[in-house]
């Protein structure tokens, strides 16, 4: 079992080399990234790492005692598995500290071909119970799992007690309201999915149209939101759109809030969580530097004295200012959200 009182590791996003350096410089213990292909769940245009960039990033991080995880967390098709397997091979060759995998075919590949490379279970595997985690550990030797955003902190505590697999949770940034890896809304509307294509509500399908003073957002021709004049419009993710149900119009699935678990940090420490993950590989180096700095300060303060810890007002406003909706939630970690 994990000691539980160990200071958790801050796992930070990087969509490019400047963001990686910003994360390391701001005190990120670990940076996670993906290669520039279909193999990772943030397969966005203009994002991610070439082989040379990843090599430089890993050298930069290692020279400063930071680690690098490589996400290969979409599912391969049966026609050509090579973009996925070559990404795992490259992560191993470049000295990545772990690969983050979701598909069982890839877990099996990594175990057989790179037994010394640490394997983490991606949030995209949607493993939200200890039976699943223990299965992945037994069969494929995973050392850590990122929890889907469907479990309460109480449940995370219980899971931690019944598995040797380290637990990593999302604490900050964009919030999936569905169980990751079990959501096909994006392919239902646009034809492209997180699991198969590494995208959700892809930019190529988004259109903004002025209509009677209001701004309409369409995704592949489907109206998913309408903004009043002057109302701020964040990136149009499907599940945060406005729809109608029971005769009421509004955010039927989720408000456009960002996840922020700063106030829960002592409970997160006590739950034995090993990794605190910040979402946002698609965000700028400025975003990464600001958010990682705040979280570094908070984690250090909580580690120094968890009983005296309080989320400082400037941290909260700092994170709100960086979030897409300008407002925050603790999401599924507390029962009331449900």
């Amino acid at each position, binding site marked *: 079992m994990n000691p539980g009182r160990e200071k958790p590791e801050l796992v930070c996003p990087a969509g490019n080399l400047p963001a990686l350096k910003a994360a390391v410089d701001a005190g990120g213990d670990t940076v996670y990234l993906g290669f520039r292909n279909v193999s990772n769940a943030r397969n966005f245009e203009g994002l991610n790492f070439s082989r040379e960039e990843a090599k430089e990033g890993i050298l930069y991080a290692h020279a400063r005692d930071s680690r690098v995880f490589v996400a290969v967390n979409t599912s391969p098709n049966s026609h050509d598995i090579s973009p996925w397997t070559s990404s795992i091979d490259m992560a191993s060759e470049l000295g990545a500290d772990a690969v983050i995998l979701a598909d069982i075919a890839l877990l099996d590949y990594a175990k057989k071909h790179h037994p010394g490379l640490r394997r983490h279970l991606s949030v995209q595997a949607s493993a939200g119970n200890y039976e699943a985690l223990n299965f992945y550990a037994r069969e494929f030797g995973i050392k850590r799992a990122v929890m889907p*955003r469907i479990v309460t902190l109480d449940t995370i505590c219980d899971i931690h007690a019944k598995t040797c697999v380290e637990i990593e949770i999302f604490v900050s940034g964009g919030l999936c309201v569905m169980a990751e890896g079990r959501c096909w809304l994006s392919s239902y509307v646009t034809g492209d999915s997180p699991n198969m294509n590494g995208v959700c509500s892809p930019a190529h399908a988004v259109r903004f149209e002025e209509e009677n003073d209001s701004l309409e957002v369409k995704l592949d021709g489907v109206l998913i939101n309408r903004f009043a004049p002057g109302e701020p419009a964040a990136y149009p993710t499907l599940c945060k759109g406005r729809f109608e149900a029971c005769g009421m119009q509004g955010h039927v699935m989720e408000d456009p809030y960002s996840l922020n678990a700063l106030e829960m940090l002592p409970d997160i420490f006590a739950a034995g969580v090993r990794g605190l993950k910040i979402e946002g590989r698609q965000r700028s180096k400025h975003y990464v530097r600001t958010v990682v700095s705040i979280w570094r300060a908070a984690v250090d303060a909580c580690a120094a004295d968890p009983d005296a810890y309080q989320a400082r007002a400037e941290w909260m406003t700092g994170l709100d200012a960086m979030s897409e909706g300008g407002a925050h939630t603790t999401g599924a970690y507390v029962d009331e959200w449900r």
Partner: protein
Amino acid sequence: MAVNCNQSMKIAVGPVLFGWPEAKIREFYLALAKEGSVDIYYLGEVVCSKRSISGVIWQIDLARELRGYGKEVVLSTLAMPTVEAELQSIRDLVAAAKAMDIKIEANDVAAVAIASEAGLSFVAGPHLNIYNHGMLEQMCRQGAERAVLSLELPAMDIAAIIGDTQIQVEYFAHGKLPLTFSARCYTARAEGLSKRECRHVCFLYPDGLEMRCLDGEGFATINGIQIMSQRPFTALNHMSDLAGMGVDILRVSPQASGMSDVIAHFRSAMDGAMAARDALFAMSDGRDPGSTFCNGYYHGRQGRLWIKA
């Protein structure tokens, strides 16, 4: 007449995905059993454990009763178990299935693990995300004897995924598509309630709650913690192609009404009594099937669309 390569295919009725009272579920399955057109029955709560008011015992009793009609019965497990009570319900179903010498449908890796440890062969369900041959092989290694591939896969991928595995393949061929799972109950949210105090409000919507775009266009169906397609998917007109790809079983997913007719249309197309396209036309009440159904995923397109063959 339709080509008769369909004749070795079977029809399965999937688990009821909506919130129905136990009495309605019993009545639904027993009525189908008396008609006798279905080969395989899946039953069990897949979506939300809060719906199983009296636990899994009644499902096991119903399974016994259905078996009396001489057809195969499979116990379906919960798709997103997180807490101990939910895991225990899976263990109970596995124990019951073992005692009855029937299979479970595993809809989460936890159920794969529990069935595999118990030495029980299982159906790898549609929520396990089988996208490729390697994953399918791993499921076989754990004891899967049948698999339902991911619903968003293009049909043209099916043969490559099956490859040389000796496993039965079942295709989700008709019904509203289960698209997501969440921690949040959207039916409760739409009714101004929370999941904790949901009052089983999903039971008011036996075919799910309609969700529209702001311009009034239909968008999707709310089913508790799940979002489903607005329209039922159907692959009735692609039956022969699916048989050619190696699909053994076609799954029809329950809706509140008209299931007997849907199954009859599938049966007559399968038996060659009616051409599949005529059966589809009849099932659409003579209208354009595209105004009633969707099939985009079959063609590797947007799931919400209807693509003419």
